[in-house]
């Protein structure tokens, strides 16, 4: 996909996301927290976090006393996966906001994950597999180690190592991660664990030696792409996950050339299967899904970063580059 086409999609989808603010913003009322987190990630990468403090204050208001979040903003029970995603939004945004209330929210999240970790390093969520569930707190801790305060880093270091070891030990010899209970095909789990847990270690000064694991995961993802460019039976969510994972891992292990054709095919498939006039569906031909629409915008923003001359720009979109908050997109889009 050429950059002009990507920029055109980004502008149009961003305008749409703003137009349907009521459908995803906690400032408008109760929401599905997975959708809130997906939308806030777009807001961050569009360079709008600094002027969106009310969105993050609403996120903190929805945070439970234990430091987690429910799947729905009004649900009382915290869930690990969505809590990790919300915690990531807080720490990323606070790289820009530098706000004490947001920092307190990050601390509460850290405590939530430290309390919830099992002795073997995993986190559990009764609605999802343990490997994938574990990847998201590890991803949050990766970002804490890159962007957090020295005290925060000290707090999470040991739990982060245990979580990462649990993931590394769970990788199959073929490079994939499988969950027999929830996701036997392994596509989404492998895409998540590659980008959200393992490869970050290559960016962190104190990281574990994970390069062989990342290389095997990348090969697994490339080998499982369908000829049309999609993954997992034309599953839009999993295709977007695999695309993002390929962007990040290929940059971290300098395998861009090997991945270029696969990425081009994936992005063309994603573009060809948009809903019209805006958004993306869960599967081709279905109606628009707001969560997939946010994912689509996020993928394009990461692809745009991957194409920039600064090789670290795409890594900054995950927040894995220590001490540098410049992952915020410079270019502005007028709404």
């Amino acid at each position: 996909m050429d950059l002009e086409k990507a920029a055109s999609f980004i502008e149009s989808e961003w305008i749409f996301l703003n137009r349907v603010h009521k459908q995803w913003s906690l400032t408008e009322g109760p929401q599905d927290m997975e959708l809130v987190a997906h939308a806030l990630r777009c807001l961050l990468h569009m360079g709008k976090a600094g002027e969106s403090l009310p969105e993050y204050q609403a996120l903190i208001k929805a945070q439970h006393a234990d430091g987690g979040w429910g799947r729905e903003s009004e649900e009382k029970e915290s869930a690990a996966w969505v809590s990790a995603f919300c915690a990531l939004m807080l720490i990323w945004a606070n790289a820009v906001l530098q706000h004490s209330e947001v920092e307190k929210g990050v601390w509460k999240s850290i405590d939530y994950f430290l309390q919830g970790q099992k002795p073997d390093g995993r986190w559990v969520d009764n609605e999802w597999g343990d490997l994938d569930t574990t990847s998201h707190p590890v991803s949050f801790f990766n970002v804490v180690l890159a962007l957090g305060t020295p005290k925060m880093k000290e707090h999470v270091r040991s739990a982060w190592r245990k979580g990462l070891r649990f993931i590394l030990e769970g990788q199959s010899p073929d490079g994939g991660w499988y969950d027999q209970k929830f996701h036997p095909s392994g596509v989404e789990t492998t895409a998540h664990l590659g980008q959200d847990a393992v490869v970050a270690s290559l960016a962190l000064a104190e990281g574990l030696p994970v390069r062989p694991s990342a290389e095997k995961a990348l090969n697994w993802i490339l080998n499982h792409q369908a000829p049309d460019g999609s993954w997992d039976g034309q599953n839009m969510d999993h295709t977007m996950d695999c695309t993002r994972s390929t962007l990040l891992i290929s940059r971290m292990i300098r395998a861009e050339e090997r991945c270029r054709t696969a990425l081009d095919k994936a992005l063309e498939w994603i573009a060809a299967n948009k809903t019209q006039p805006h958004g993306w569906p869960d599967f081709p031909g279905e109606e628009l899904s707001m969560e997939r629409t946010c994912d689509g915008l996020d993928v394009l923003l990461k692809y745009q970063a991957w194409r920039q001359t600064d090789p670290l720009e795409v890594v900054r979109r995950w927040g894995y580059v220590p001490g540098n908050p410049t992952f915020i997109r410079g270019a502005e889009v007028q709404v």
Partner: protein
Amino acid sequence: MEELKSGESRVVDVDGQEVALFNVDGAAYAISNRCAHRGGPLSRGHLEGTAVRCPLHGWLFDLRTGICLNQPEVSLPVYPVFCEDGKFCIK
């Protein structure tokens, strides 16, 4: 019946409800098309014997009973299917 081969699925409208119809080794099963978890389309799911796995988050439903095998407290409506004049009919 000829149009729906073994291992395939189809979404049909039954009184305004989306129903996923599956052919498993010549036997037909009908179940509500939307997963009880996050509304994923079961017609796009993976068949595992006489169960279908939701393509979004992996919930596995027994096509004979509608019971979710990894969240047993949850179930979906299933509908009896019979064959008449070469067509699948849902009661």
